[in-house]
């Protein structure tokens, strides 16, 4: 087996608590499908047959009852439950399932919606025998107004600085602005090896990583790393150029190949920490080393060093220029995703089991879920209506997201809002850019603008 897929679905959605305090992030409906259906669908389309899903018990329960998950997902899902207290980071979760991991892994987050050709990322991983290969995308501007927020908030402090080499594939530098207090400093050794570096800030990390099995073993021994994105990836990127990694003792020369074969446990011979050796000491088998020596290929030119500068640890990134790639971890992203995700999959706008009266005006951009009941004289434009929702007469819904089981009484006017599951909107309510929480009730004739109704 080549790659094992791991889906991280235990995240709490800390940046959109209004939506997630009742429904776990993995099961939030996007285009009437649970959020985690999208990465699972991506994996299934690519040919995976088994996925290890790390999630909480609540999500597991919801997964087993959700019809979409049961019918559409044909892969075998190996669900591993972890505690819900939120202390476990993604790397901790990997450490938790270390026993199940037998080969290299592909880690995906449950909030990724994309249609990337996954082979671009995996080919980098395979061809260059990389330790890490990840996916990034150019950030898209969010054009929709976010309910509950007056004006646009600019989050300029959390930029990511990503440094790639000239070909745009090799990852040389990665740091978050929050970690760079004094400014961006780049080591001379990196500059000597890669004199041309492109530093990009407008990239979104898709949280899709191909990792070697040795990294998981390394995590098992190194318990201080708890987040893949926050700690493991920057660590690996830094370690590519660390002096200890490229110590000449470890480099295999053609002449002392036979000797090196016998020096299997490198850790005992070199003055290195035992844990670091796991990643570094993937000694090339002598045949592979011979092939590399005889091959007339080099990834760079202009200096005297061999391919990859002799480094054994390599990190690669594939940057998507076009095509959708969203991480649904904020409210704005959630709304954007709802707008665009159904188009990705050519969803049927109206579910066959929905009951829609004939005098209803439905725009072509709207999506109606299963078992809905839409009464006369309603107008639904650019909205998504979830399953089992009842919409009574003379209701105008525009630019909104209505989740499952909502009841909207007559004469309501809902614009630009997000209504969570099981809410009840009283008669004649007028909601503009509001966020109504789970199970809330809006009084009849209520006029709300830019409000958030949450318990």
């Amino acid at each position, binding site marked *: 087996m080549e790659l094992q897929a791991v889906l991280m679905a235990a995240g709490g959605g800390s940046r959109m608590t209004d939506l997630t305090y009742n429904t776990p992030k993995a099961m939030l409906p996007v285009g009437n499908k649970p959020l985690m259906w999208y990465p699972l669908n991506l994996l299934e389309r*690519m*040919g995976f047959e088994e996925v290890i899903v790390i999630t909480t018990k609540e999500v597991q329960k919801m997964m087993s009852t959700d019809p979409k998950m049961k019918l559409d997902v044909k892969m075998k899902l190996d669900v591993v439950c972890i505690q819900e207290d939120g202390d476990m980071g993604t790397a901790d979760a990997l450490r938790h399932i270390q026993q199940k991991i037998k080969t290299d892994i592909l880690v995906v987050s449950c909030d990724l919606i994309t249609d990337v050709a996954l*082979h671009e990322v995996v080919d980098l991983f395979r*061809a260059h025998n990389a330790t890490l290969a990840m996916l990034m995308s150019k950030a898209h501007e969010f054009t929709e107004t976010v309910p509950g927020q007056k004006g646009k908030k600019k989050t300029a402090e959390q930029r990511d600085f990503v440094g790639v080499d000239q070909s745009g594939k090799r990852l040389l530098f990665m740091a978050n602005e929050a970690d760079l207090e004094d400014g961006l400093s780049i080591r001379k050794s990196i500059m000597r090896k890669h004199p041309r570096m492109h530093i990009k800030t407008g990239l979104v990390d898709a949280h899709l990583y191909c990792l070697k099995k040795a990294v998981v073993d390394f995590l098992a021994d190194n318990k201080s790393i708890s987040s893949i994105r926050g700690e493991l990836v920057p660590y690996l990127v830094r370690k590519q150029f660390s002096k200890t990694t490229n110590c000449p003792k470890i480099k295999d020369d053609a002449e002392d190949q036979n000797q090196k074969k016998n020096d299997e446990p490198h850790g005992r011979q070199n003055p290195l920490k035992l844990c670091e050796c796991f990643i570094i000491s993937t000694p090339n088998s002598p045949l592979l080393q011979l*092939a590399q*020596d005889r*091959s007339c*290929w080099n990834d760079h030119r202009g200096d005297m060093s061999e391919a990859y500068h002799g480094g054994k640890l390599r990190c690669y990134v594939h940057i998507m220029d076009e095509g959708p790639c969203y991480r649904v971890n904020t409210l704005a992203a959630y709304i954007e995703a709802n707008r665009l995700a159904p188009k990705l999959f050519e969803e049927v706008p109206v579910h066959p089991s929905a009951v829609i009266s004939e005098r209803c005006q439905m725009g072509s951009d709207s999506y109606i879920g299963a078992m809905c009941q839409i009464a006369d004289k309603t107008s639904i434009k650019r909205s998504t209506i979830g399953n089992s929702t009842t919409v009574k007469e003379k209701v105008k819904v525009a630019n909104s997201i209505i989740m499952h089981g909502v009841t909207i009484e007559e004469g309501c006017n809902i614009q630009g809002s997000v209504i969570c599951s099981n809410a009840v909107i009283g008669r004649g309510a007028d909601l503009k850019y509001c966020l109504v929480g789970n199970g809330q009730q809006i009084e009849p004739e209520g006029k709300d603008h830019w409000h958030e109704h949450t318990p």
Partner: protein
Amino acid sequence: MADAGEPEGPERKDDIVKAKQEGKELTKEEKQRLRKEKKQQKKSKEKKDDKPSRDSEKEKKPASAASPAPQTPTQPPAQKAPSAAPAPVPVPASETPSAADKPAKSKAELKAERRARQEAERASKGKKGDVGPQAAPGKPKAPPSELQPVVKRLPEHVQVDNPEVLKKLAKKLERQQTPEYNAATKVKIPLRSDYGYKVSLFSHLHQYSRKAPLTQQLGIPSTVIHPAIVRLGLQYSQGIVAGSNARSVALLHAFKQVIRDYTTPPNEELSRDLVNRLKPYISFLNQCRPLSASMGNAIKYIKKEISNIPSQCKEEEAKRKLLNCIDCYINEKIVLAAKAIAKYSIEKISDGDVILVYGCSSLVNHILCEAFEKNRKFRVIVVDSRPRLEGREALRRLVQKGINCTYVLISAVSYILPEVSKVFLGAHALLANGYVMSRVGTSQIALVAKAFNVPVLVCCETYKFCERVQTDSFVSNELDDPDDLIVTRTGTTQLEHWQEVPSLGLLNLVYDVTPPDFVDLVITDLGMIPCTSVPVVLRVKNVDQ
């Protein structure tokens, strides 16, 4: 014979009409056969022209011909579906002894035997559509006599502009399905499509784009093809593993991993099943990048070793033996051969020499480094050419050792040749008529060197000797990605939209052949031989094996 014939009637394409009359068919056939024999005897006595044989052929046509039989062994063995029946295996093997025994047995008996074998073969293979169209043109050419020499055709991978051949290739790939354990999901190996406009002289060759790798059409956790082979295919198509020796070593390394991960399915023999397992991998690699002659020889060697494993050998022991064989092969044919060649070459390098090398040949680099270590005083001129610019890598390796180097492009070769005392060239393959197949540009260098009376020495290991015969670079070559020729200088890319210009074609050839008149000496691990002695070496090698 009657028993073997009966179920076979409906299988033959031409006999569909007569399917119901099986019993009568056979007697008809027997009559036809007797008639044929009589006519042949007449023919051989009188030595007339082939008019009567043509008549007999026309009679033979409905009953299908013996002519497909000599043709079937020439088709690549990969086309035969993996079958447990021993029938197909003895057929090609027994063809040759049957021809040898000809004077001993009578023609009639032989023909009858062959007919029976053919029918049994057809039963085990099922319908074979390709026999039909190939047999049709073959029939008028091959009269019923068995001693007629087999008509050799151009190999399939070269006839890219012939749609029939492409269809056959697609079918062949479909048939080369990896046997999955549940046998219900048989995924086929995808066909890589050609890219861009091909120059008409080379339209019979494949031209692929590096931006459309074959992995696009495969599932991501590749279960059909072993991951080591997928990785290798990617490395070939992206040029990460380049160079004849490197590709062979990497191939054998990947095969070692395949063998290590292999388990014999129940009711199968390792010696047969493993060979069948390797076939789809080899076609996959062929599509990523056409196989080199050295890789072909390595594959032949492995297949022979696998089929020679005795059936009572246990799996673990068999695997260990195979891994050992591979290690020995590499050690003998590549590592030790390089040492031997270096030893011979150092005798030819004298102090004060100016040596010209072209491109990056791992063997030539090795020789020069060894000579430098033995304290020979010489300097090197590295000649390079676009678009690969491999000379830069050779330059780097030589300068790293401390050798005095000069670097020029191939357009300057006639300017610097007056300074040169020897030319060392590497080879991709040595053909059976003495021609040297090497990187494109090598024949130019050899030609100019000959004009200046500079000795040209080609260094090549014996495992790269190949039985093909070629006198020009057109009939069999490799076309690389044409987009490699596009270069961006000072912000402008002139050829960016070359596909839109209908009269423009970009040609990126990889190999060319150098005639033996331009080569003065070939240094191999067997010694220093003239170019024309290559067939002798091949003959000796075959006798050894």
